[in-house]
């Protein structure tokens, strides 16, 4: 998928609006996994806005995100970085599988390199 | 009898002087188009709109009537739009009873800053009324040419 379309897709999946970001950095300030992440939440939002999706897709940081939602809770502008990160993870998963994650497939995939967060996101998605 | 494809409805829009008329002016200032068959009548407040005026409009061949006033709570006269809302609710249920499609009448709150909303509302309302076709039920044929 083209970068532009991919960006749109990530924004659409996340349901968040990164343009609302006023770059205050409260997400990064609040992030408990800061030290583990190569890309920090506020950079993450900025990279989505500027379409730097390739870098994000190949980042390790997206798997280090704990999905604790502290950044969503504290964000004064309702940008919700955690949702964007989840959407990028989902984009990675979808590209790999070329489809949505099937609930039946989860146990088999558990042993593999699939990160736990992706399973959580998938479950959350199917719970809705 | 006009063919439906070329049918252009006559729409009367009653706008309160303080919000909606200014909103209509603003859509002009911003050059936002809406169909020319919408004709605006200025009234001081939406509560000035006597239900008789709407009946008269239908009787004389209007195909749709829309009342625009200030948003609830923003009325220049404090409570005027609340009166208007109640009166129109009653009138619309009566029109419904008479068999006038309820899509032909509408109340919309448009503030002086909502030029875009005014134009969008008018576009949509004209579309709706065009689809309904000519108002034949209430038109007084003695008034028709």
């Amino acid at each position, binding site marked *: 998928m083209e970068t532009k379309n991919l960006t749109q897709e990530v924004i659409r999946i996340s349901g968040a609006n990164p343009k609302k970001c006023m770059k205050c*950095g409260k997400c990064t300030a609040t992030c408990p996994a800061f030290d583990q992440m190569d890309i920090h939440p506020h950079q993450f939002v900025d990279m989505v806005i500027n379409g730097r999706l390739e870098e994000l897709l190949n980042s390790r940081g997206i798997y280090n995100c704990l999905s604790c939602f502290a950044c969503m809770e504290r964000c004064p502008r309702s940008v919700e970085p955690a949702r964007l990160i989840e959407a990028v993870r989902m984009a990675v998963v979808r590209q790999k599988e070329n489809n949505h994650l099937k609930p039946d497939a989860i146990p088999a995939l558990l042993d593999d390199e699939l990160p736990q967060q992706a399973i959580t996101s998938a479950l959350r998605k199917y719970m809705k | 009898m006009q063919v439906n494809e070329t049918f252009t409805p006559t729409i009367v829009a009653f706008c309160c002087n303080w919000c909606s008329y200014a909103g209509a002016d603003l859509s002009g200032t911003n050059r936002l188009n809406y169909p020319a068959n919408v004709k605006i009548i200025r009234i001081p407040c939406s509560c000035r709109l006597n239900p008789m005026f709407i009946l008269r409009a239908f009787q*004389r*061949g209007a195909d749709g009537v829309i009342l625009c006033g200030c948003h609830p709570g923003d009325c220049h006269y404090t409570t005027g739009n609340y009166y208007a809302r109640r009166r129109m609710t009653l009138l619309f249920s009566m029109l419904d009873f008479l068999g006038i499609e309820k899509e032909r009448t509408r109340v919309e709150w448009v503030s002086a800053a909502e030029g875009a909303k005014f134009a969008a509302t008018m576009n949509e309302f004209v579309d709706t009324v065009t689809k309904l076709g000519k108002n034949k039920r209430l038109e007084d044929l003695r008034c028709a040419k």
Partner: protein
Amino acid sequence: MQRIGVFVCWCGSNIAATVDVEAVANALAMEPGVVISTNYQYMCSQAGQEMIQNAIREHKLTGIVVCSCSPRMHEATFRKTAQQAGLNPYMVEIANIREQCSWVHKDKLTGTEKAIILGRAAIAKVHLNAPLTAGQSPVTKRALVIGGGIAGIQTALDIADAGFEVDIVEKKPTIGGKMSQIDKTFPTLDCAACILTPKMVDVAQNEKIKIYSYSEVEAVKGFVGNFHVTIRKKARYVDETKCTGCGLCTEKCPQKKVPNEFNLGLDTRRAIYIPFAQAIPKVATIDADYCSMLKSGKCGVCSKVCTAGAIDYKQTDQLIEQEYGAIVVATGFNPISMDKFDEFAYSKSPDVVTSLEYERLMNAAGPTGGTLLRPSDKTHPHTIVFVQCVGSRCDSSEKGKSYCSKICCMYTAKHAMLTREKYPDTEVYVFYIDVRTPGKNFDEFYRRAVEDYDVHYVKGMVGKVTPENGKLKVQASDLLGGRQMHIDADMVVLAAAIEPDKSARPLATMLTASMDTNDFFTEAHPKLRPVESPTAGIFLSGACQGPKDIPETVAQAGAAASKVIGLLAKDNLTCNPCVAKSDEMMCNGCSACEKVCPYGAITYMDKEFRGPNRTTLIRRVASVNPAVCQGCGACTVACPSGAMDLQGFSNSQIMAEVDAICK
């Protein structure tokens, strides 16, 4: 039959580009009653107006229709034009063929067609117009200022200076407002009390100004020039005329554990108190919630020690009725509650304070006598973290405010600077999103904090504060440094967003003045009429209209005062003649109109009428006070007999317009 003149304006190419003005003029010339129909490039120009005036005289016109821009733009202009030519100004109708025709339609054919119909509607209406004369209503030459902060004080002083009487209603026991709580003022760092208290004394000594302290506005009736206001003077259980303000009672009162609101609860006061030394009026007030005498009838110490005999436990609320010509709202602001920002541990640690609390901690007249001490253990803080934009610039969620509170950047720079100056061994961090310093000498002030006072300005935000072993563990981001910071702070100061005072909303309802979604009062025009409310006779001063610093507030207070003076200088106001009028012969006395009138403009009276066979009948009929009626027309629709009609927008006129449009 009316003799009508029609004048079609080109408005340069604004109208002429999409409307064939020639064709419109020709078509309208065929309408019944039209004796002249013409077009011109700019009707509103001097030449255009003269053309109209000449036509009025030449053709003995009884009514004119101008097809031009919106009546909101030039109705007044053309009415004046008509009046100068001897035609009643209310015999003028405007057909709006610019904003509602040429500007919204692209096709010249449809534009022209619509312009003709709009012109016809206006002609149909003008046929039924009647000459109207504007009435006069007298102006009460006294102003009311609601709120006794710096905004209210300045407005009152300026109005009084022009020779008019002013009353200030202040809900607290003293005037002075927020400014009296502030230590120093930016960007000059002069002491707030030094510049405010002389003004407060001026107010107290000014013969034209009367202060109703510890009072609130209870009800407002009437209209511009003639407001009737009920003021509730709350019982303070102290006779203001007798109290000398010696303060003996405030020292002897045994009830010592009352949170002192003047110091934002950082210390306590007695149940009988004077908020601060320079209070105006300097009169004690008993806090009924805490006074044992008022609660249980046991105590009476203050009464025993008062040599002036001013204590009066039997005092009750008093209602004062007063007439005013103009009302100025100066209700000010408050910092928002920090309840929803638990990540900063405001409720968990007393060492996390808001900026206003910090202001009291720095103030020589504050709870610590001007020595900066941590509220928890009264020790000197050595590391202080300031957090900006707490609750400001939030997404329009329920959490905070969407607007920038405007004053925080500057007062935070001030606090940081003062702290560093007094205690150079203190490390001061300021976490900012943007530093916004548009104002005279403002940016220079902020730069001084960075360059001369070594305040650590960090672009980023504090994520969370955790109280631990007497310290505050601050986790924050340093966006430019690309790192997360962990600071062991002694104090955290939150620049809380400001919001309008809670009393503003009910007051706005009483005044029928409009507010925005944040409860700030709306101005009549955001650029051109910034100190007037859309409701005539209501003026806005200070932060009740939007966040403001002191210089701006004073400037706006002066502007509001000048508007009030302009109003009070008039002996009479010209009323809008487009008001309701009842036809007594048709009125059946049902009172429906009286009930819907939002202004109480309609009264009923018994009137004698001539009956058949030389008898007289007494009938109950409605009568409209034209000075009070604002011309909304609610009554005209409520009237079942059709007796009530609105002049200028009569039933028959609107019907005629409907007919013309639907033809």
